[in-house]
């Protein structure tokens, strides 16, 4: 065990994977000798050589398009998109190509690959270094979407994603890169995809969250306990697609009061899916309407980002609202 930040756990995960399998390679903009703008790939070029960890031309379409070609021909590419905000030139490659390749070729061609990308706010990045686009991708059949929130899960989910036979979009909460530390096992281990993590047990209110919102929700849940003696069940979704739907419903039934938290905009956001899932499958267990705490339906602001991002005040408000309903 070693105590690591989330970004160190990502780096350790990549090194662990690459040591164990020569077909794994990492590339993207500035991921070579510089080690990536957040240093996720630091030291990889030195250890594995520039054929397995290298800088690419500045083209997200090219990065993902070539990764698909490598994946179908025996390699396991881990491609980095420097900021999730820059992924859209590759949207066609991800949505029309990687995600549909197995289906459209009847399984003759597949694209087992990982796209790593830092997402979300909290670094004063403004419109184009802060977005949370998970809903665009979770909507796409054939693509897995994974978001860790702890160093342990970052490494374990990354290793599971690399081993997965399907394309995985691995979204890293950049706000947590250096903000959280935790124990990370040495060497190989995996955290199964499509499994939830119970962050905190509770019988009064269920809160679903993922990524950078997990510590925010933990803080609000602690306050709810302290101030009102409300016991919150906090669930970290970890894999948005395919989602452990049974686990989500089970957690909703346990309290009958639900809050969903994400920093992405609300309209057609991931919280809408969770709400609908509960409404369709276990409305008879509900004691209060589902509450969503989300980013606003605006572009992401710079100076006032702390007002845009859900914080413990807003989450606590929602907890009290569903509890007092």
């Amino acid at each position, binding site marked *: 065990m070693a105590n690591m930040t989330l970004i160190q756990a990502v780096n350790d995960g990549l090194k662990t994977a690459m040591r164990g399998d020569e077909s794994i390679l990492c590339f993207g903009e500035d991921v070579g000798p510089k080690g990536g703008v957040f240093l996720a790939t630091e030291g990889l070029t030195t250890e594995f050589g520039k054929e397995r960890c290298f800088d690419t031309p500045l083209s997200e379409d090219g990065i993902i398009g070539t990764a698909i070609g490598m994946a*179908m021909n025996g390699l396991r590419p881990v491609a980095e998109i420097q900021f999730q905000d820059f992924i859209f030139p590759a949207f066609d490659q991800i949505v029309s190509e990687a995600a549909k390749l197995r289906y459209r070729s009847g399984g003759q061609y597949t694209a087992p690959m990982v796209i790593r990308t830092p997402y979300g706010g909290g670094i004063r990045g403004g419109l184009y270094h802060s977005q949370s686009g998970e809903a665009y991708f979770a909507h796409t059949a054939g693509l897995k979407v994974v978001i860790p929130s702890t160093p342990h899960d970052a490494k374990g989910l990354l290793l599971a994603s690399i081993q997965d036979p399907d394309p995985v979009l691995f979204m890293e909460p950049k706000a947590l890169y250096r903000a959280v530390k935790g124990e990370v096992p040495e060497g190989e281990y995996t955290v199964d995809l499509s499994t939830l993590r119970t962050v905190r047990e509770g019988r009064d209110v269920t809160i679903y969250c993922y990524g950078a919102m997990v510590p925010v929700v933990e803080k609000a849940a602690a306050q709810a306990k302290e101030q009102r003696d409300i016991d919150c069940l906090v669930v970290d979704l970890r894999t948005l697609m395919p989602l452990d739907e049974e686990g989500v419903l089970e957690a909703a039934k346990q309290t009958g009061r639900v809050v969903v938290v994400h920093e992405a905009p609300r309209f057609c956001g991931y919280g809408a899916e969770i709400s609908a899932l509960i409404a369709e499958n276990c409305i008879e267990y509900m004691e209060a309407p589902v509450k969503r705490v989300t980013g606003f339906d605006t572009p992401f602001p710079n100076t006032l980002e702390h007002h845009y991002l859900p914080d413990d005040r807003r989450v606590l408000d929602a907890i009290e609202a569903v509890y007092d309903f």
Partner: protein
Amino acid sequence: MTDMLTVIRPDGATKKGYDAGLSDDGLLHCYRTMLLVRSFDEICLKLQRAGRIGFSIPNRGIEATQVGAASAMRKTDWIFPSYRDFGMALYHGISPVDMMHNMFGNAEDSAKGRQMPVHFSFTEPIHFYSISSPIGTHLPHAVGAAYASKLRGEDTVHLVSFGDGGTSSLGFHSGMNFAAVWKAPVVFLCQNNGYAISCPSDEQTASDGYAVKAEAYGMPHATVDGNDLFAVRQAVSEATERARKGEGPTLIEAVTFRMGGHSTSDDPSRYVPKELFDEWEKKDPVERFRRFLEKKGLWNQTVEDTMRKETLAEIDSAAKIAEKTDKPGLETIFSDVFAEVPGHIRRQGEFLFDLVKRRGEASAGGGEFPL
């Protein structure tokens, strides 16, 4: 325009001593493949007009580019085709029956009826990559696959084929650029057939032809007469040789003409001047190769009659087999999204199977997951 490589003159003659590197059987195989493509076109048009298949893509006019390029590739090489490359598949022995299964979208179709017709996918006897409808997306795929081959030290070459319209796509730029930077073993084959659906070349690009675009990427290029099977074969052979030696990619522009609509849904008389069709009719690639074979003593009317009859019968029989084959089972809607069917998709499948059962509707394949 840049100098264009031509080997077979309109009268069928080549320069004295020109050796295309093909045996007599090999030459006849090229000719027969072009006739197979013509038969395929002919029968698919009839099937589409009769409402028995939904759609087809005519190949007439492009046969020499397809077959000339395919003849320069080994079975261990990969072809990343456009949707108008029937001749490349047929040249390498992909069976017309398997192609017809795709045209009918039946249970034997390698794409399991999920794609429109002409979106073939094969891995044997050659990698003939799964076709997608968006234009130019497969160029970077060829480059990535080539990077993998190169990394493993194999001498596999990856040929990617696209049209003149494809050169305006995002994938053309990223594919060309990455391939050149990586010295990836790729042959970029641009089939300049005059029109991208209805958009003529002078509205597609302001550059002097398409091959010259390679210069900006630091890549060698060649412009060839696309109606001349040997010219295409020679340029692609030289490009594959360079690629196998580790010298990187080449862009080849084959200048040809689409002697018909973009697809069975298109009426080219709305945008192609009749004179252009008349002009290119005189340059027919199959006729030109026939004259070459005749001069070489490999062709006579009996050979022609027999081959035409055989190829037509082969495609006709393939269509009949495919038409009689069952439609795909309902479960094929839900399988192959992921390697394993996840819970939510399984539940959606079970919903549909149950609905169909309750309503007493017939469904092929039983509507059960083959797991």
